[in-house]
């Protein structure tokens, strides 16, 4: 254990953790939304994210960008960010919808037991990540330097980069928008109704299938944004990137209270920071082990998470 490392790098570890946590939080929204409505752990959500990390890389490739390109001008940066985000959002959203229609809907129609959903989800996850693995020969792919990380704020020993600020701000804005959407719009009301009571919502004229599709789509969109942020922050992606970060995101969702949107934000930020502290203490190879241990501890002592479960009740 390296306490001096943790204490010396406390500031940087916290900031890195917050940025990491913001990505995790956006990713976690997909788990939380689907769980809130269907009581289902959408195991394939990690691959929805994975496809997003590749989608923006491919589109950037069309512009002739690769990891060795020179950083673009400000105008170019804005353009590339816009198309990259658009591509990732589109691909992730579509992937999420496809998983719902192909892997889950037939089971739901047959009233299959809950574990059956989990098993197909695992199948879908394995299928997508392995296809990507084979297509990329299991090599990692570098990200072009769309935004160069430059320190913009310095507090004591801690510098905060423009990229970190962008990630955290973007995550907060998206969270706020999603929260407004679910609480303020007609469609959002439908989601809440189905989350609280699927049967009576159906009686009230809410189209359950459409609501479920919408929830998957929303989760996919958020995962797409998280995927672009991830690419920019980490600089590479690989066929198993979704799986590894997916476990973190799921842990974050459970930590905050799965099914609860604000819980996902809190859980994500908290987990990102704790993981980085653990990495400072024990070395970075233990980062994922730390989140698992945390997950087990939460499930044992507070299975409903910090802010409680349920999409409907949490905001009442």
């Amino acid at each position, binding site marked *: 254990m390296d306490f001096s490392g943790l204490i010396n790098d406390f500031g940087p570890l916290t900031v890195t953790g917050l940025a990491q946590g913001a990505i995790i939080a956006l990713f976690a929204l997909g788990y939380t939304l689907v769980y809130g409505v269907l009581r289902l752990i959408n195991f394939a959500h990690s691959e929805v994210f994975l496809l997003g990390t590749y989608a923006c890389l491919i589109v950037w490739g069309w512009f002739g960008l690769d990891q060795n390109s020179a950083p673009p001008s400000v105008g170019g940066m804005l353009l590339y960010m816009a198309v990259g985000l658009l591509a990732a959002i589109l691909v992730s959203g579509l992937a999420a919808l496809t998983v719902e229609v*192909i892997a889950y809907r*037939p089971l739901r129609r*047959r*009233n*299959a*037991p809950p574990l059956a959903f989990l098993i197909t989800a695992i*199948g879908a996850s394995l299928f997508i990540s392995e296809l990507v693995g*084979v297509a990329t020969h299991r090599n990692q792919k570098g990200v072009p330097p769309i935004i160069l990380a430059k320190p913009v704020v310095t507090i004591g020993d801690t510098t905060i980069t423009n990229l970190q600020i962008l990630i955290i701000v973007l995550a907060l804005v998206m969270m706020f928008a999603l929260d407004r959407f679910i609480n303020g719009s007609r469609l959002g009301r439908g989601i809440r109704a189905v989350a609280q009571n699927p049967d009576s919502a159906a009686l009230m004229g809410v189209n359950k299938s459409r609501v479920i599709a919408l929830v998957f789509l929303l989760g996919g969109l958020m995962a797409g944004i998280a995927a672009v942020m991830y690419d920019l922050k980490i600089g590479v992606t690989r066929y198993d990137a979704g799986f590894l970060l997916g476990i973190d995101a799921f842990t974050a969702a459970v930590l905050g209270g799965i099914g609860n949107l604000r819980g996902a934000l809190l859980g994500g930020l908290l987990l990102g920071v704790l993981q980085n502290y653990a990495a400072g203490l024990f070395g970075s190879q233990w980062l994922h*082990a730390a989140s698992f241990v945390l997950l*087990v501890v939460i499930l044992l002592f507070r299975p409903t998470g910090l802010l409680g479960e349920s999409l409907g009740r949490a905001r009442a």
Partner: protein
Amino acid sequence: MSETASSFRENGGVRGWLGRQPIWVRWLLILAGTVAAFLLPYAEHVPLIGPQIVTEGVDWSSALFEISYYVLLALGLNVVVGYAGLLDLGYVGFFAVGAYGTALLTSPDSILYEDTGWKWLMAVPVALALTMVAGVLLGWPTLRLRGDYLAIVTLGFAEIIRIVATSTTTLRGDRGFASIPHPPGSWGGEPIFGVTDAIPYFWLGLVIIILVILGVRNLDRSRVGRSWLAIREDEEAAEVMGVRTFKYKLWAFAIGAFIGGLGGVLFAGEQSFINSQTFVLQFSILVLAGVVMGGSGNMAGAILGGVLISYIPNRLRGLSVGDTDLYEYRFALFGLAIIVIMVLRPQGLIPSRRRAMELKDREKEVAPQ
């Protein structure tokens, strides 16, 4: 023609037919099947069919050995998932504990070598005890969790085992443990379990499989099996009827761990070398895919599933589409197979009669809508 086929189905298909035969016919069939299994290494000599069965890209007897430990794993996971209804996504963790336990006690690379340096056979009981302890340690805090949470936590358990194996100096990460001794015994001055010939290992695997089948069957047809089934069907009612649900779930975990550990010690004894690359998570999911495809809750189904997940990839090896070896696609194909089977035939290829009915009941519940 189609009429006889449909009436055959109505009478319970192959299994119904088997059930109506006198007991000696059944025993004879089982005996014939067992003998045929032991003769599998010589399958290539069978005219016409033989060459189609035998794997091209891999040594056939090695492929058979691989089948044997996959079948063991499928049988073990079937106890956990099929009988007790607990979804364990980290089953490979037990396989790893069994293999690493053996390696630590026997390999010259182990820090324990000075004190132990045991033969394979001496290490086996200790390694198996270790896996059972691991099963209980994992099950004790987690078996009270809801089913879907249990799945994620077990997944985490396997990942932690892998991370520990990769990152600690004691378990040597990629470098792994070499010179793990083979099982004992000699024949005409030559060791039975050598380096070149995998056939004896396959036979050893078969013997262990048969013992495991008998053991699990004994448990299934006792209060243990009744308790598992009761827990799966209605956990609260089971408890109210005096079933110690937690105890039996823990037993299912420990027994599953034990069988997984058996696979691990067998694997370590044959390979003589293990490192952290062996125990990837896809492995657990592959075994789960096998159990689900074959038909969970049914030993014949689990065995078929275990055979499929190990045989098909090896059969695909050397066959290529374009410039990619089909073997590369094995996990992707099994991922697809899981989805297709769960959507079209959720009870698996050889379903457990009870499981099939459970699913039908649930379908009926929604039918009137």
